[in-house]
């Protein structure tokens, strides 16, 4: 006969099995090396240097024709000492990277701007994504000089857009934990 003790153990095991792996694999994750927002004329613009990394499985998947998606998430938060921070700006840059077997090139699409680039090497494609230069964010007039602002940048590897069979595995396999953490820095006015 099952006792209540065995039942408790059974429930605990079930919950443990269902718990998602919340930790990121630091060696595989994308890293924001440098990022700054500067004022150019009337606009604040973003410049960032990002080190994209691909795990072995992600590389094989890419070379097998699986398209990979990243989104560069940019936020500008107005800080309040006692309340939640107010999101002044929230914008994303979406990238799609796919290998073209016929021409043996890596095709990188900036889905936000609609631009397409072809690269003969993977590193060339990643290099393009790595460098963000003079990306206009917000007009100067919308930034109050009295308030403090916080800039946040994150590279999110979009597992939800992987092929369905890969998706469920991607949520539990560290090889697919390719997103970066949030990088935060104060806005220099």
């Amino acid at each position, binding site marked *: *006969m*099952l*006792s*209540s003790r065995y*039942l408790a153990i*059974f*429930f605990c095991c*079930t*919950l443990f099995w*269902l718990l998602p792996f919340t930790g990121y694999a630091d060696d595989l994750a994308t890293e924001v090396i440098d990022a700054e927002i500067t004022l150019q004329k009337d606009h604040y613009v973003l410049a960032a240097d990002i080190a994209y990394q691909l795990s072995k499985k992600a590389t*094989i*998947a890419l070379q*097998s*024709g*699986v398209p990979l998606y990243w989104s560069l998430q940019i936020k500008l938060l107005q800080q309040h000492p006692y309340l939640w921070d107010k999101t002044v700006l929230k914008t994303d840059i979406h990238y799609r990277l796919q290998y*073209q*077997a*016929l*021409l*043996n090139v890596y*095709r990188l699409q900036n889905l936000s701007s609609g631009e*397409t680039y*072809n690269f*003969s090497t993977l590193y*060339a494609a990643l290099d393009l994504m790595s460098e963000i230069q003079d990306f206009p964010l917000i007009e100067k007039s919308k930034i109050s000089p009295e308030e403090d602002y916080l800039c946040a940048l994150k590279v999110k590897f979009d597992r*939800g857009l992987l*092929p*369905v*069979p*890969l*998706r*469920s*595995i991607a*949520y539990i396999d560290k090889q697919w934990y390719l997103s970066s953490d949030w990088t935060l820095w104060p806005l220099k006015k």
Partner: protein
Amino acid sequence: MAFEKVKLPFSLFTLILFGLILLSLQLMSSATQESSELSALYSWLLLINGLGSVVLLSLVGVNIYTLIQHTKKREAGSRLTRRMVSLFVVLALAPAVIVFYFSMQFLHQGIDSWFNVEIDRALEDALELSQSSLDQRMRWHLKQTQQLTEKLQDSSENRVALDMENLRELSGATEMTLFSRQGRIIASSSINLGDILPSLPDKNIWLQLRQNGEYVAVAPAHEEKLMVRAIAKVDTQEPQYLQALYPVPVRVYDLADSVEFAFVRYKEMKFLRHSLKITFTLALSLVLLMSLLAAIWVAFISIRNIIAPVKQLVKGTQAVASGHYDEPLPVIAQDDLGFLVESFNEMMNRIAMARDETRIAGFEVENQRAYLETILANLTAGVISFDASYNIRTANQAAYRIFHIHVNHFIGRQLLDLINDRSELAEPLKSIQRLLEQAEDIWQQRIAFLGPNGRQELLCRGTPLYSQEGLRVGGVVVFDDVTDLIQAQKNAAWGEVARRLAHEIKNPLTPIQLSAERLQHKLADKLEPADAEILQRSTRTIVHQVEAMKEMVDDFSEYAKPSKKETVDIDLSQLVKEILALYTLKSGVKFKTDYEAGVLTVNGDPISLRQVLHNLIKNALEAIDSEGLIEISLHRVQKNNTNFIELALYDNGTGIKEDQIETIFEPYVTTKTKGTGLGLAIVKKIIEDHGGAIWVDTSRKVGAGFIIQLPACHSEPL
């Protein structure tokens, strides 16, 4: 015919939940298809189904826990529920697991069968063929461009644009551009006149150009077309580069695209093969798990509903077993079990009615029995009943009063067991036992024995008891104490004798005495001295005898007349003291008295009671020697809820012979040489006239002892 409402064994909520589970599973199944619009929701659906499984698992877990607790407490229906659930789980699980196993086998084999070496090779070859075709085209276009550069070598700067236009039209290029070494556009020609800016080579192309002096590549163009970009060096003084963009024919592009699509798709599928298996396995496992959990949960609910009437029946039977018939079970459903519950209720109702009737009958019987027992208990006649083995079954109070034995204590034992306590009852009881066993009909016998209060005479009537089948089931003996009756008859007879004697004999005595004295008086002087002496002696004898006869007649008269003439309250101790004071002067005799403290009062005639004491003391004095001892004690006793004053008188004289004890109180019974023998008879008569009793204390072994009990006065405290 009325339509009966069909009641499902589970609620609407359960049905809705079950429907949601099915919908969720269906959505997840659809989402596994890449082309489905639901594929974007796949992860959410997977999570929802996972949570659904956890919820179902919790529900099943709670049900199992509850069932275990109920089983431990041995609640009604818990074991049946456990058995049914186990059976259901086994029945549901076994085929599901078998189907699951073979489905997995087929799935894995099916996925594996999609891929084989031949297709792999064929697709790679097809891709290579496409690439070779494009490569050949590229090289041809490069060569064509190189040839065009030769034609442009001689063109002056003014004519370059025009020559390029011609060359472009001749070569079939869509766009032709001449760049300086620094990348400046010298001239450009496009098939589309609207194109202001020509397609510029990027820095990688320039790098290759500077290294190799030429460049050719197929690059995607607008509108999902391919174009060949060929760049060749123009040998002029200032090196220049001619870029020509040649369109790939649509057919070639379509074919190449088709091949690439198939190749990429195949390769992707091959890469995803393992993931696909895992995904399908996960989906199938989730479907199986949720279906099984939902089925088990619904089974729990259904079985609980099915068991509910059984549980009620068990509780009902337990209630009936403990004697509660008053709460009918609710009829939940109009099915077989409902019919069973109805039948059970009817049975319970009938049992309750039968019980009530039995209880009423029992009350009546009990009342009857109590009534009869009361009558029996209050009967003056003793009644003892016997069972078939002649063991005592019942005995009433009167039996105790008559035998002075607690016959009730001998229930279940033989009648002869009473002898152990009272040996004097041996003969009469043996006689009764014999009659009980032998008599076939009503019998009657008079028996006598010496009881603690003297001789007792009983009139016994017995009857054997028969069952309806004619079997002997026991007997009943009824006995009356007729001692007093017989004594009364005797007393009446003696009284009549005494009265007649007094009347018939006393009347002639006076004339006889007078006549004898007259004879003496008349003839004494006339006779000779010798004759006169004879006469005197004779007349004296006559006178003396007449006197004696007179005394005797007086005694009889005394015996015959009522002794309780004038009653007053008498302090018995005082009376005894007064009388003893008359006798204490007699030398040699010692009196020892023992009076209980307090006033010992009786209601009676003081003269008669004095006579009683005189008679008894006289008898005692006559019986003892000159150095004798007479003990007198006075005590209160209680007998049959009545207070008595007991006077005991003992002497250490010659005592009474055993054969005389039974008749000592009858007239003309005496141990003395003189006297009429009426002394004790008169004593007994006086005492009985006063409602008391006198008997010889047979337990006294020295001398004689008399015990008198007189009813205490009502005012006498005890």
